[in-house]
């Protein structure tokens, strides 16, 4: 398939390895296959987006990688427990922004005395200096997702899983957060597995875009995106590749209407 995949397999270095992963759930008409034979490596420091229409099992796949659910067949290997960011911020409303981050540090075993400083550092990284004592409801949608990102970073995982984290934000805020995510990814050298149904977002962010077909979710195609960062969603190469991917995606979706 692609060169990236082969290279990662050669060096055996990976942030996540999915080996012939399938998942089925008990449905009304017997077992329903949601994910079918997914084989995928995420290299250390790599940014991969999983793209697909409804019913492609993107979120199921992330849950499997996060260890929240077990695959029906195949195996998943990650280096430690990955951090996971959701579409909803999932911040705990009984804690302040800073304390949310500190809880992640505490659960990771960071000593009490170091937590505050580390939390402030992470808030600064997502440009929310001064938000330490803010309650979740006092923050805007974009700020909440940045605190959620800081909390995920507090887990110090090598792999960050993101489940459509910007889908509920307005377009202006989303653009800015794309810039932020690219900056933080560059600064931290994390591996990111990012799920979205937004083609341009996928191309804007990733080094590699993987298209999943729907029902069951299979890897349909993948593209290596070698447009230099920082990109903008309006850039001509981004738009061009997006168009190409959209056409393939629509072809995949069309097949479902035919039978």
């Amino acid at each position, binding site marked *: 398939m692609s060169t990236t995949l082969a290279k990662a397999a050669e060096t055996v270095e990976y942030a996540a390895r999915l080996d012939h992963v399938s998942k089925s759930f008990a449905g009304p008409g017997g077992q329903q296959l949601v994910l079918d034979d997914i084989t995928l490596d995420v290299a250390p420091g790599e940014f991969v987006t999983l793209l697909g229409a409804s019913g492609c099992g993107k979120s199921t796949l992330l849950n499997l990688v996060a260890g929240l659910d077990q695959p029906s067949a195949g195996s998943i290997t990650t280096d430690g*427990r990955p951090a996971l960011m*959701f579409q909803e911020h*999932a911040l705990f409303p009984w804690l302040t922004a800073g304390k949310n981050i500190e809880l992640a540090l505490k659960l990771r075993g960071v000593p009490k005395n170091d937590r505050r400083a580390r939390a402030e550092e992470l808030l600064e990284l997502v440009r929310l200096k001064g938000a330490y004592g803010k309650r979740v409801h006092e923050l*805007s*949608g974009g700020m909440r997702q940045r605190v959620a990102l800081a909390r995920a970073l507090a887990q110090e995982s090598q792999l960050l899983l993101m489940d459509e984290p910007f889908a509920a934000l307005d377009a202006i805020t989303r653009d800015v957060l794309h*810039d932020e995510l690219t*900056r933080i990814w560059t600064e931290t050298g994390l591996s990111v597995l990012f799920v979205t149904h937004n083609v341009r977002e996928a191309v804007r962010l990733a080094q590699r875009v993987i298209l999943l077909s729907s029902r069951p979710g299979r890897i349909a195609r993948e593209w290596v995106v070698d447009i230099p960062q*920082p990109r903008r969603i309006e850039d001509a190469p981004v738009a061009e590749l997006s168009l190409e991917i959209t056409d393939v995606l629509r072809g995949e979706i069309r097949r479902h209407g035919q039978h």
Partner: protein
Amino acid sequence: MASTETKSAADSGSVEAGLDALDGVTAAGRTPFARTFVDKILPPVLATVLLLVVWQIAFKVVDDPAKLVAPGDVWQTLKTAWLEGKLLGYIWTSVSRGLLGFLFALAIGTPLGLLVARVRFVRAAIGPILSGLQSLPSVAWVPPAVLWLGLNNSMMYAVILLGAVPSIANGLVSGVDQVPPLFLRAGRTMGATGVKGTVYITLPAALPGYVAGLKQGWAFSWRSLMAAEIIASFPDLGVGLGQLLENGRNASDMGMVFEAILLILFVGIAIDLLIFSPLERWVLRSRGLLVKG
């Protein structure tokens, strides 16, 4: 390349600061006193005045002191009890029993609720009974409690426990049931599983339901206690508000009866206003769940 990178990053940084300023929730200023007075203080005062006027008119119409006394007469009864130094004694006898009983109920109801919420077998076994007990009037427990424990304070506490424990336990159960699954998933990805999950995620997330249960638990404690005091009034136990009411009935003293009823009502409201409402408001406000109307 490097220069555009820094420029772009700096750009999005400043745009972000602007967005944050635009989107940020502006803190609501302090409500002026005049507004608070009109919104919060005036209505109940007017309602009370109206009630007193209606009461006075009803007294004139009924014109039978054995059936209805004037507000002024009840005031006199209260004043006499105060001057004789008995008023606070009545109140304290009942309030101390009520609060102590409530604390016992809290100590039993909380672990019980947690057990029912988390252990499937326990829930299937006693969950329905616990909900059913809430609809059983606690006054029904007074006769068996007297027979089991005799006429003493233990009997009173037993009745309070049987009234309040189900409310407190059920409040915690419904609080735990209503914890959004997203919080549990987020907690699990952060390593909060098992006991850690309960301590750091489930219990704090269930706090609003638990506090609602405590509030109801207090109301049930107080009612149970009054039922116990009225039915099992016994001079050696000291005169609480329930006994005062029963004494009033025995003496056919309408003034004393009304005095007792007003005091029971007053204590119930006061404890709620002083302890449980502030607790509930604090929990809800800190989570942004209390909308300033």
